[in-house]
């Protein structure tokens, strides 16, 4: 992050000198001010949706959805399925992501990867770990509340009307990621887990 910061500043200064016209001091102050305005206008809807997230959690709706998803996820994670705690953390992670509970998703995901690692005992990522990470980086979210809050604060007519587009896009990107992972798995062969791989293929079919 620090490198990124220095690079951005250096690039701005370099281009500014090249063009020579811009008042960069003014721009810096403007940017800083805008951030505060943005945060203030975001606060309302972020609080509302965090409250909503807490209701989802406490009402047991999250746990219910997680149980509902477990059989589907079991097909994607045949090795993890053998251990109930791993599977619990895994489906909890996916559910929390779906519901936009980012702060709940990360610890559950870490727990799942930890348990998978303990099972494999290797310092190389297993195929299922890669799959889990791809599912997390591709972000499948039913309610992208932060973006909707952002749109609302900037005066969008209907902040949530991007929902269908977000769903289609997420679905496409997750599918592409999982397909790519599968392709890489077949090509790479993988270090020393040939056996579990054969079982995995069987599980997938």
């Amino acid at each position, binding site marked *: 992050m620090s490198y990124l*910061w220095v690079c951005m500043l250096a690039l701005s200064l370099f281009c500014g000198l090249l*063009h020579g016209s811009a008042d960069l001091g003014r721009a810096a102050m403007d940017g800083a001010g805008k951030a505060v305005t943005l945060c203030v206008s975001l606060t309302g809807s972020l609080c509302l949706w965090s409250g909503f997230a807490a209701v989802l959690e406490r009402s047991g709706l999250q746990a219910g959805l997680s149980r509902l998803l477990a059989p589907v996820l079991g097909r994607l994670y045949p090795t993890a399925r053998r251990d109930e705690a791993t599977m619990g953390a895994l489906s909890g992670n996916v559910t929390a992501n779906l519901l936009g509970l980012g702060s709940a998703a990360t610890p559950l995901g870490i727990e799942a990867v930890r348990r998978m690692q303990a099972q494999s005992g290797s310092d190389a990522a297993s195929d299922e770990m890669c799959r889990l990470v*791809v599912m997390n980086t591709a972000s499948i979210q039913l309610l992208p509340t932060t973006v909707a809050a952002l749109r609302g604060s900037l005066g*969008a007519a209907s902040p949530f009307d991007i929902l269908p587009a977000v769903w289609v*896009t997420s679905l496409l990107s997750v599918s592409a990621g*999982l397909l790519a992972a599968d392709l890489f798995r077949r090509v790479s062969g993988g270090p020393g887990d040939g056996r579990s791989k054969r079982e995995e293929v069987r599980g997938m079919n």
Partner: protein
Amino acid sequence: MLIPGLLLAVSALALGRRVDVYDALLTGGKRGLELVKAILPALVMLLTAVELLRASGATEALTRLLAPAAVWLGIPPETLALVLIRPLSGSAALAVGADLMAVHGPDSLIGRTAAIMLGSTETTFYTISVYFAAAGVKKTRYAIPAALIADLTGFVAASLTARYLPS
């Protein structure tokens, strides 16, 4: 109608299960406030950088440089900065996305594309490093390329859905 309906449905269901709904809302709301507090300093620094990059003409130069590749993929060149920063930093992406929406308007094609990109992708490198570091996994094998393919698909798909999907 969808959003208030959803709020009502979940609240009523929780009430039916004897959950103190209002207390949950307030506790969660406090978490939202903490979230804002946590991202404010990052947003200040990054929006400053975004503004500097734009005022200096760096954003424009970069956009012009990479525009042919973006056009070939069907991605609006204006969103290139967002595409480049998204996998690296969540708060920087939020800053760039907010800037795009403010400049072009949240309901413009560019603004919608930026919003869909933000909503359907994640901070790939951060996520991978957190998950694997926590589990002591050193060889990430194909996790990064696969995740980046997912991201790229997401960016292209966001450009398509923003243009062609009726809202």
